């Protein structure tokens, strides 16, 4: 019997599941070190306040308390760095106020850490932290970008006038203004992109460990990118050289962006472990996640589209206020600029675009990348605007989109906002999505629903994503302070099994399976003989981690490069063993064969020869069979697609139910279709969550109102439908696998499809725009606002 197909394209069941389904995963909080102490962080419950030096005397006397540290103890420690410098319109650099590890006399958001108590038990540390008496004097505060931008608004940082972090722009303003002046139609829409709280199910945790014998530090942390944490914390915060600092990110229970960044708690436990020469563990309670994990989105925008009389898009003009929160999180500044405004062409041929973005400080938790990061905001703006344009001009919304799609023969396609798309077929994803969603048959379903007293609507959204982050030189020229290549080390062991060390990190994506499939496919070894190792700076040469749907496109490509080197070396060994010319050796299905003969050697035999080089070309070739490769991508990758959503609204309650959801995505080559579907389903669930349920609510002063699962509505099983997921793939042209990435597409394409469907369902109520989340209360108010119209009231 032939072995089951396990290579590229097979829906192989996941290797990592065995430990997860039997409760044997090792998440950070599952780790305990001998002699471990526990840290509890006392945080601000005020949005903005000053406080004098904290008196720790009484709390120090409490049982079990070992140490209490405040900013005064951290004098030699740097602030948390921001990894991306944006420049203002006038070329000057952005405002970058210090982000202290512990607040230095001023707290700037609810959740801002003030002091850390370290004790023998978690409960003792918490008891003592709650007893610390902090004499706050409240300061005026501001929570929204709209308030922060007002003249005379309270200042979050005295050093930042007007609360403006940067005032940036992209595109040709003069050309856009000219196009608007001559346009047949001009459409304008004001919209917000609601603030979200990522809420990975595993709360963040960190353990600092210090080896008295060697002076080495180890940090165990819930991170998507352990090498980045080692670099940022070692070089900028604690001044620890890399060779004395090991960062381990073991099993991580979801990230969605929130576990990319370097957080204060990581520096605190590492530093304290050295100070006390004992391990120190910190685990967030969920309420701390709400007020200390970087939030996502939070844009307020005005968007304008100019069209000619036939509906061709002539120009797009966008003005956005983006909330940074109180401090700059690691990648925060890149999100509303290079991950947002550069995406505003979407899948359309809009010839000129101008966008200006003002990033504002407010007294709220720092905002950074959350699943999709900038690209969902761009997609929501564009697809709502196009929808409103269709409505305002009386054109069919599908036809209007079709008329403006970038044609399939136009690639590579240069947009007016810097990106050059390498491949795509937006007609195909649109057609397939409409077909799978039975767009044509909707009217019958609407009438059937109406007969039951329900309002049924359908909406679509196209989207374009730039991911596979990123070409180092390009992002460097745009302000990134780090490179964004990826690293792989492929080690073929003497008897032919393989360990692969990757700089990416898996926290749900299934890399241990997908990468093993890739290696199994390319080297012709059974899947069971391949292990993928990630998440430990002591084992992995280097790496930038997992975010921006980059792991397969960049990390997988690095693996291919390393395997190419393995195969090239293997050919030399095989040529020697079989006394043939190296150019005559072919490698296929795990065998090195002398072309045109039946002479061959398996990769296992070659590996054994490489490690036991008795008969070996030792003069020309080193023993061993292990190779490392760094892969720097040539361009971003560009997934794209179309999502269609169908909703039913209960007139009496305003509750919106998603009854059908179809996603057709172009993610490039698919290694494991089961995993791709799972990624899309999860992304769509978060997108529906944003559209209908989730909102990080602050009062005007900056008090977090939605600070627990009781106030922040997470999507639950009965809030969601089954999803119809399909792909329609074109290959990426510039990486060796043709892959594009699938981690974020679901969260990018879905929110506008949902809102377009909700607005469609309310067609008789004169609704033009609904801000997310479209909660039952909001919908009920619209339905009950006045006389029920049969026609929109214009």
């Amino acid at each position, binding site marked *: 019997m032939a072995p089951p197909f396990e290579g590229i394209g097979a829906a192989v*069941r*996941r290797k*990592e*599941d*065995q*430990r*997860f*389904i*039997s*409760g*044997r*995963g*090792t*998440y950070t*909080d*599952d780790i305990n070190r001998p002699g471990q102490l526990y840290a509890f962080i006392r945080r601000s419950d005020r949005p903005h306040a000053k406080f004098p030096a904290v008196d720790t005397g009484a709390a120090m006397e409490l049982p079990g308390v070992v140490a209490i540290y405040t900013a005064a103890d951290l004098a030699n420690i740097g602030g948390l760095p921001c990894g991306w410098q944006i420049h203002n319109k006038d070329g000057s650099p952005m405002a970058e106020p210090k982000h202290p590890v512990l607040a230095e006399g001023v707290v700037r958001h609810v959740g801002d850490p003030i002091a850390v108590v370290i004790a023998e038990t978690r*409960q003792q540390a918490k008891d003592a932290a709650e007893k610390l008496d902090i004499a706050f004097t409240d300061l005026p505060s501001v929570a929204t970008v709209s308030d922060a931008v007002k003249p005379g608004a309270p200042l979050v940082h005295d050093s930042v006038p007007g609360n403006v972090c940067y005032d940036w722009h992209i595109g040709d303003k003069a050309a856009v203004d000219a196009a608007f002046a001559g346009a047949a139609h001009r459409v304008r829409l004001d919209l917000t992109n609601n603030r979200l709280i990522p*809420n*990975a*199910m*595993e*709360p963040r945790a960190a353990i600092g460990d210090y080896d008295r014998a060697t002076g080495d530090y180890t940090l165990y942390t819930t991170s998507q990118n352990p090498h980045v944490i080692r670099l940022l914390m070692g070089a900028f915060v604690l001044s620890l050289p890399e060779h004395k600092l090991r960062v381990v990110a073991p*099993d*991580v*229970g*979801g990230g*969605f962006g929130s576990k990319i960044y370097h957080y204060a708690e990581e520096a605190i436990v590492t530093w304290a472990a050295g100070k006390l020469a004992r391990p120190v563990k910190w685990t967030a*309670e*969920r*309420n701390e996640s709400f007020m200390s994990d970087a939030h996502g989105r939070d844009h307020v925008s005005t968007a304008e589209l100019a069209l000619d009389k036939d509906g061709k898009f002539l120009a797009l003009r966008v003005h956005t206020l983006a909330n940074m929160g109180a401090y700059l999180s690691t990648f925060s500044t890149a999100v509303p600029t290079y991950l947002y405004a550069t995406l505003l062409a979407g899948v359309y041929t809009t010839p000129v675009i101008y966008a200006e973005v003002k990033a504002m400080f407010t007294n709220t938790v720092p905002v950074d990348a959350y699943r999709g990061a900038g690209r969902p905001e761009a997609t929501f703006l564009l697809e709502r605007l196009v929808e409103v344009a269709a409505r305002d001009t009386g054109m069919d919304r599908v036809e209007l989109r079709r008329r403006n799609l970038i044609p399939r023969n136009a690639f590579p396609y240069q947009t007016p906002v810097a990106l050059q798309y390498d491949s795509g077929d937006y007609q195909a994803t649109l057609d397939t999505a409409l077909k799978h969603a039975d767009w044509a048959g909707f009217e019958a379903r609407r009438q059937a629903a109406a007969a039951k007293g329900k309002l049924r609507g359908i909406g679509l959204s196209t989207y374009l994503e730039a991911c596979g982050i990123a070409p180092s030189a390009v992002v460097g020229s745009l302000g990134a302070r780090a490179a964004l290549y990826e690293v792989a080390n492929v080690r073929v062991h003497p008897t032919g099994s393989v360990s692969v060390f990757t700089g990416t990190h898996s*926290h*749900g*994506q*299934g890399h241990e399976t997908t990468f093993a499939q890739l290696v199994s496919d390319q080297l012709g070894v059974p899947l069971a003989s391949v292990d993928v190792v990630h998440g430990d700076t002591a084992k992995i040469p280097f790496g930038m981690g997992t975010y921006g749907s980059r792991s397969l496109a960049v990390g997988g490509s690095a693996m291919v490069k390393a395997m190419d080197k393995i195969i090239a070396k293997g050919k030399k060994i095989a040529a020697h063993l079989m006394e043939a010319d190296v150019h005559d050796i072919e490698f296929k299905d795990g065998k090195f064969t002398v072309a045109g003969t039946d002479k061959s050697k398996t990769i296992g035999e070659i590996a054994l020869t490489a490690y036991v080089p008795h008969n070996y070309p030792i003069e020309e070739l080193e023993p061993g069979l292990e190779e490392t490769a760094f892969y720097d991508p040539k361009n971003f990758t560009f997934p794209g697609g179309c999502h269609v959503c169908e909703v039913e609204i209960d007139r009496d309650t305003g509750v919106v139910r998603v009854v059908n959801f179809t996603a057709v995505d172009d993610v490039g080559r698919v290694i494991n279709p*089961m*995993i791709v*579907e*799972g*990624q899309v*389903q*999860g*992304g*769509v*669930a*978060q997108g529906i969550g944003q559209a209908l349920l989730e909102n990080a609510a602050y009062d005007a002063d900056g008090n977090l109102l939605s600070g*627990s*699962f*009781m106030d922040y509505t*997470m*999507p*639950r*099983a*009965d809030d*969601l439908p*089954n*999803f119809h997921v399909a792909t329609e793939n074109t290959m990426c042209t510039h990486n060796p696998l043709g892959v594009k990435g699938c981690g974020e597409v*679901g969260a990018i394409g879905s929110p506008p499809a949902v809102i377009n469907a909700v607005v469609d369902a309310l067609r008789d109520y004169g609704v033009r725009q609904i801000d997310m989340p479209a909660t039952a209360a909001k919908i009920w108010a619209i339905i009950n606002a006045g006389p029920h119209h049969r026609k929109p009231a214009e």
Partner: protein
Amino acid sequence: MPQVSVTVNGKPQTVQVEGRTLLVELLREKLGLTGTHVGCDTSQCGACVVHVDGRAVKSCTMLALQADGAKVTTIEGLAAADGTLHPMQEMFREHHALQCGFCTPGMVMAAIDLVNTHPEGLTEEQIRHGLEGNLCRCTGYHNIVKAIAAAWPLMHGKSLPAAAE
């Protein structure tokens, strides 16, 4: 300190605990059974679900002392002694019902109780409703619902009655 005697995964244990120690703390911190997770502080996520005397319980809402004399089963105790997985574990893997795996132990324990308590059959709607107390941020639930429907016939030894629509 008071002490509590419980049988965990078939093994009798007597442990000293503080009065305020939660069952989940007893399992994770005293007994080293870290398969049961803590995802919240308001009893809303279900990551901590275990079986106490055969019924699903959020172990973060129960004091360790309240479990005195009880039989507790955690995710680590589900598989047979020879390692054979429980059908629910098997179906979670088969249907890709987990991604990061953090919600999975609680989800599997809650799902087993749901199937056990519905010998007459389970519709998709009932499954979705039955999972109300368990949050998953990764999967969008689609595959979890499929896995539970697939585990029902394996656990009841007959095919799932067609949903009465």
